[in-house]
């Protein structure tokens, strides 16, 4: 059908490109643009083009500034200038005229003026400010076309700072009777939302109105804003799910006017947009998903027509079905639909099918099994993009059983690839797979050899580093480590003996390091062999000085007396007069150390392994110094990004290059260091964005711990494999048995295997058989784990969502409604309001005095009776003696409200006094909340009226159920205010500032602060090991550090972790061998994960969280916990 249209359209290009066509020739010959284009088309060289355009620009320049040029001619000139710029020749002298044209031109001229502005200028161009007045004028015009043009340009480009000037006018247009004006106004607001979201925050309800507009175009426009807002905060728009579903239902049902159809399909792009929104809303949310099942089903059914656009909708629909909470019959239909895609003879559909499959196999690897033969065919497809997409798919289904085949396929592609971006990407992926699933040492080293040779200098720079780290840190068994290293040495020696000058620099560096470090393991090597090989590397013409540095350092490690020393002597002489200072330095070192074996043994001890360096990244030892400096008036420290923001604001010089230099210099200095991996890991930790980097590379996420990983991409691997094996026994599907056979017999000859596994009953010809063998090795181990992962996912999703919902519910409830008994925190506040033993200011007016009276009664009884029970033994001692707290407040802590009784709380700390009022405070750690109690004691002889207590904090959100007006504090009495705190911005310590003011007898105000450690906001987080693994991958902020172990011996890890569990309330998720994982959350629900590994007598700690700064702060408290212990 579209083919027919396409044929009728073949006439079109002639209109556009002015290729010889009789009709157009006559008309366009008058057009100067036509003349220009014709001229360009006839040219054969770039040089001639440049000459022609420069001439053209000169003539434009001439005419454009002439006063006699009419607006009509100006428009003509502008279009020609647009054309010149489009070809890459700057025409900046016309910019100002473009603005003038928009200002003064008539209808079409004005539009072209605006068009030129939007093409020529970028968002930050200063000339854009000159446009503001014109836009303002046009927005107020009575001519709708002018209003329309102004709104269009505002929707494309507008200076951020000037938004307030036109915002009211644009808002006003939302009520315009004309559809097109309302629609353009919504799109303009969308632009504002994109460039300055804060500016349009207050008009969110107007977006809702646009969504409900009677015109479908206006509604469609509003969806852009909603898609963005929902992406950022899906929880905030769940109530709209029903609306989106209803809209989609109407669109699918053909309720829109006919002219919204495209090839008889109702508003396809609108449908796609709605499906995207629905998948965001239904993700991890079963109740919202429930609402959309019906319409998703209908979308699948309606889109049956055989046209590209219906397939585009189906693709989106399938993605949506696999994103929202799973429903089995829909999944089945979607899977069938994917089948239609991948089996289609049309290549575009096949591509899309593979893309869909790649997306869904993450949820359900079984689907890959269904289409295995198609996937095999696509793997050998002549079109590279199909091949590439297939590899992407295979990458997602790799496991320890099929890794060798899949990696081989990826390497095959790499060998043929010429595109740098593809190479970098694939090299990262192969490395990730190899490190995670390598079946044995030989395979691993050989695969990495290929990776280094092919990836060469295109690979991510952290890749070789982590490989070396992996080699040097080793795994559980020393024997295995030795074998791996030995194999690497063997392999590298033979590589260097062949043609080392073909190897990339990075690979040569890796080889040098490994040989320097481990070639002594191979005893049968002649002592001169390796130094000679290194000398060969040094002598290579194409070796960079960086590579030479690595080689020289390696040689320094090897110059063991005798023949080796002789080679070293020769080399060092050559370099001791080298012009490159770094090389000269290394040459001197080599010379000295080769002559002094004792010194060398001390400087470069053999087999020392990476030394554990304890780095206190939070620099807590400087705390005292810092506070002294602050007290002396020094400016507080600002993190680099903040400094830069401020600098940018004041338009000072940007310091960016300096900021970047830290990690770079660290890694370069480590080149020559024997313990480079450790140093490097520190530098990556310092740089703070190592996680981001590694995510980009898709390679390093989890590689640091070596081949035998306990936690892998899919979570906890050991357990997973155990489950798999169990399932395989239970469900002996033909494919699986094939896989098992394949495993038993690696080079197994086909016949017996294919007999059991032929999916089609027909006899299989030879090539077919080969494919099936390939299939069996590719898809082995898939079917069983599908169930596991599907279950695992939904469980985790459910869990995550619940936790989050709870957190946000309690927060919002705390803000708006305080009487919801279902929510724990506010209900606690309610209790406090009604039966608090201590006076609270917002008690009903009449009862105030009575409450006060009762308060003193209960004060005594409560204090006496419950004093001992309230405080957990040994946790706190009230320091009433040395504080300025009045005697009457000694037992303040024991007067906690009932609902807080029994919870751990801090000492009551006196905050300060002004002679009449004494303030003190303590915090109580509830299970899901942190309450701050502020006690205001009136120590003067007269009652104080209108006492006002206000709390502020930069790092904290302070919630209080009541107005914080302490209307009256009677003489000698204590009033209490209660607040709920949650963390906005993590910091090692957070501070609340309390301001008390009262007007009589003379106006006074008292400003005091209360500091509490971040650890009081930490609560245990219950997750399964599997969920932990998934969360781990999705968090982007991390920090690493080696910490001291508590105790020694076998129990050291559990003893150490129990300290963390006890002191910081982290939850130990699991301990396996020398590794342990812990999880916690920062109130209300910000997770932070911790991975610990005992290594070389220290605890290697790695923290991750979605919240910036949280890992660092938590690490600080971990260190504190150990020093105090």
């Amino acid at each position: 059908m579209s083919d027919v249209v396409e044929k009728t359209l073949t006439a079109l290009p002639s209109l556009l490109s002015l290729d010889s066509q009789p009709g157009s020739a006559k008309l366009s010959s008058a057009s100067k643009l036509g003349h220009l284009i014709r001229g360009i088309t006839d040219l054969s060289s770039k040089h001639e083009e440049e000459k022609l355009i420069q001439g053209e620009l000169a003539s434009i320049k001439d005419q454009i500034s002439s006063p006699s040029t009419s607006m009509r001619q100006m428009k003509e000139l502008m279009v020609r200038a647009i054309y010149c710029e489009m070809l890459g020749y700057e025409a900046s002298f016309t910019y100002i005229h473009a603005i003038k044209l928009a200002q003064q031109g008539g209808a079409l001229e004005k539009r072209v003026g605006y068009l030129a502005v939007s093409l020529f200028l970028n968002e930050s161009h200063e000339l854009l400010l000159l446009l503001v007045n014109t836009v303002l004028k046009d927005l107020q015009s009575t001519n709708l076309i002018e209003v329309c043009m102004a709104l269009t340009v505002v929707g494309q480009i507008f200076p951020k700072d000037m938004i307030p000037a036109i915002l009211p006018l644009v808002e006003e247009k939302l009520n315009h009777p004309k559809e097109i004006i309302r629609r353009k106004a919504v799109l303009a607001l969308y632009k504002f939302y994109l460039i300055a979201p804060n500016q349009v925050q207050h008009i969110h309800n107007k977006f809702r109105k646009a969504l409900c507009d009677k015109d479908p175009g206006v509604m469609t426009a509003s969806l852009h804003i909603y898609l963005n807002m929902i992406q950022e905060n899906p929880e905030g728009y769940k109530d709209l799910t029903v609306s989106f579903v209803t809209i989609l239902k109407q669109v699918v049902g053909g309720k829109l006017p006919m002219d919204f159809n495209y090839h008889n399909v109702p508003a396809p792009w609108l449908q796609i947009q709605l499906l995207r929104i629905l998948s965001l809303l239904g993700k991890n949310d079963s109740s919202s998903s429930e609402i959309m099942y019906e319409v998703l089903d209908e979308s699948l059914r309606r889109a049956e027509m055989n046209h590209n656009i219906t397939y585009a909708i189906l693709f989106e629909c399938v993605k949506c079905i696999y994103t929202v909470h799973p429903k089995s019959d829909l999944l089945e239909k979607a899977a069938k639909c994917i089948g239609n895609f991948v089996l289609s003879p049309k290549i575009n559909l096949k591509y899309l099918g593979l893309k869909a499959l790649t997306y869904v196999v993450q949820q359900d690897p079984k689907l890959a099994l269904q289409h295995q033969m198609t996937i095999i065919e696509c793997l050998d497809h002549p079109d590279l993009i199909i091949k590439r997409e297939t590899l992407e798919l295979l990458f997602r289904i790799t496991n320890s059983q099929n890794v060798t085949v899949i990696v081989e396929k990826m390497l095959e592609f790499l060998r043929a690839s010429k595109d740098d971006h593809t190479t970098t990407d694939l090299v990262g992926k192969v490395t990730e797979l190899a490190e995670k699933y390598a079946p044995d040492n030989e395979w691993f080293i050989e695969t990495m050899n290929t990776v280094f040779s092919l990836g060469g200098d295109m690979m991510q720079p952290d890749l070789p580093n982590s490989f070396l780290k992996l080699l040097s840190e080793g795994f559980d068994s020393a024997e295995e480590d030795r074998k791996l290293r030995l194999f690497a040495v063997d392999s590298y020696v033979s590589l260097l003996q062949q043609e080392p000058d073909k190897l990339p620099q990075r690979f040569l560096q890796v080889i040098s390091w490994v040989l320097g470090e481990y070639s002594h393991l191979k005893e049968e090597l002649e002592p001169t062999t390796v130094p000679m090989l290194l000398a060969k590397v040094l002598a290579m013409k194409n070796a960079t000085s960086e590579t030479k540095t690595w080689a020289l350092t390696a040689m320094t490690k090897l110059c063991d007396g005798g023949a080796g020393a002789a080679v070293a002597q020769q080399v060092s002489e050559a370099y001791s007069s080298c012009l490159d200072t770094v090389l000269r330095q290394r040459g001197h070192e080599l010379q000295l150390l080769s002559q002094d074996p004792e010194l060398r043994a001390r400087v470069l001890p053999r087999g020392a392994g990476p030394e554990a360096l304890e780095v206190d990244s939070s620099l807590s030892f400087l705390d005292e110094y810092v506070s002294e400096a602050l007290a002396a008036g020094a400016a507080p420290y600002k993190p680099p990004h903040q400094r830069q923001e401020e600098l940018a604001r004041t338009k000072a010089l940007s310091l960016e290059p300096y900021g970047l230099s830290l990690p770079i210099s660290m890694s370069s200095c480590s080149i020559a260091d024997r313990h480079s991996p450790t140093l490097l890991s520190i530098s990556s930790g310092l740089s703070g964005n190592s996680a981001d980097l590694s995510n980009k590379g898709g390679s390093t996420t989890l590689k640091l711990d070596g081949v035998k990983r306990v936690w892998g991409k899919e979570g906890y691997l050991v357990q997973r494999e155990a489950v798999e094996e169990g399932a395989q026994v239970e469900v002996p599907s033909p494919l699986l048995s094939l896989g098992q056979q394949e495993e038993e017999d690696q080079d197994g000859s086909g016949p017996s295997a294919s007999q059991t596994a032929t999916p089609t009953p027909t006899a299989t010809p030879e090539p077919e058989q080969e494919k099936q063998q390939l299939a069996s090795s590719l898809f082995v181990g898939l079917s069983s784990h599908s169930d596991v992962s599907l279950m695992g996912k939904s469980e985790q999703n459910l869990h995550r969502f619940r936790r989050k919902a709870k957190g946000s519910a309690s927060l919002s409830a705390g803000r708006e409604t305080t009487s919801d008994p279902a929510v724990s925190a506010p209900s606690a506040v309610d209790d406090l309001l009604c039966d608090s033993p201590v006076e609270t200011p917002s008690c009903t007016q009449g009862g105030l005095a009575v409450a006060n009276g009762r308060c003193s009664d209960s004060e005594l009884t409560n204090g006496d009776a419950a004093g001992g029970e309230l405080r957990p033994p040994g946790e706190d001692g009230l320091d009433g003696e040395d504080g300025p707290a009045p005697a009457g407040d000694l037992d303040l802590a024991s007067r906690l409200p009932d609902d807080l009784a029994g919870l751990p709380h801090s000492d009551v700390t006196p905050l300060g006094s002004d002679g009449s009022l004494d303030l003190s405070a303590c915090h109580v750690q509830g299970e899901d909340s942190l309450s701050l109690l502020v006690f205001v004691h009136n120590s003067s002889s007269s009652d104080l009226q209108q006492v006002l207590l206000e709390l502020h904090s930069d790092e904290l959100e302070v919630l209080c159920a009541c107005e914080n007006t302490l209307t009256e504090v009677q003489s000698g009495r204590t009033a209490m205010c209660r607040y709920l705190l949650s963390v906005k911005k993590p910091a090692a310590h957070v501070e609340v500032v309390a301001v008390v003011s009262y007007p009589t007898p003379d106006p006074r105000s008292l400003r005091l602060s209360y500091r509490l450690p971040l650890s009081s906001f930490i609560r245990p987080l219950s997750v399964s090991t599997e969920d932990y693994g998934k969360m781990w991958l999705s968090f982007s902020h991390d920090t690493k550090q080696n910490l001291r172990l508590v105790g020694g011996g076998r129990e050291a890890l559990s003893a150490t972790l129990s300290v963390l569990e006890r002191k910081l309330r982290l939850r130990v998720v699991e301990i396996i061998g020398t590794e342990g994982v812990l999880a916690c959350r920062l109130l209300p629900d910000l997770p932070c994960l911790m991975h610990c590994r005992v290594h070389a007598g220290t605890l290697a700690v790695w923290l991750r969280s979605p919240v910036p700064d949280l890992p660092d702060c938590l690490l600080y408290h971990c260190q504190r916990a150990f020093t105090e212990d």
Partner: protein
Amino acid sequence: MIKFVLMVNRQGQTRLSRYYQPVELSRRAQLEADVVRCCLSRRREQCSFVEYKDFKLIYRQYAALFIVVAVTENENELSVYELVHNFVEVLDKYFSRVIMFNLDRVHIILDEMIQNGHVVETNRNRVLAPLSALDKLADG
């Protein structure tokens, strides 16, 4: 999301370009040459989507004219492929009345359909309404 739209002839000369993410003027010519080379080298039976750096190119050929759209990884390629066709149909509808080549008018039509890299209007009548109104004013 759409990064840019290109219209080029068979010789690889740019007829129209519209960027939705800032690209320096000096880099455009090279980028366009690369992109065009990527698409022109492909055969008819090959996939209409090509990988280029970290984004995808979607191209469609109408006789001597190529339309190339660059999109980010998360875009639905087929929907953009059809969007191109819709655009061409709109052009066909408009220019069948006034046979004349006009860079500015094609831009104006494109601006009605794509804004900030998003599809904002696909209804042919509505896409053409503002331009038709301008034409009427100019005539009258």
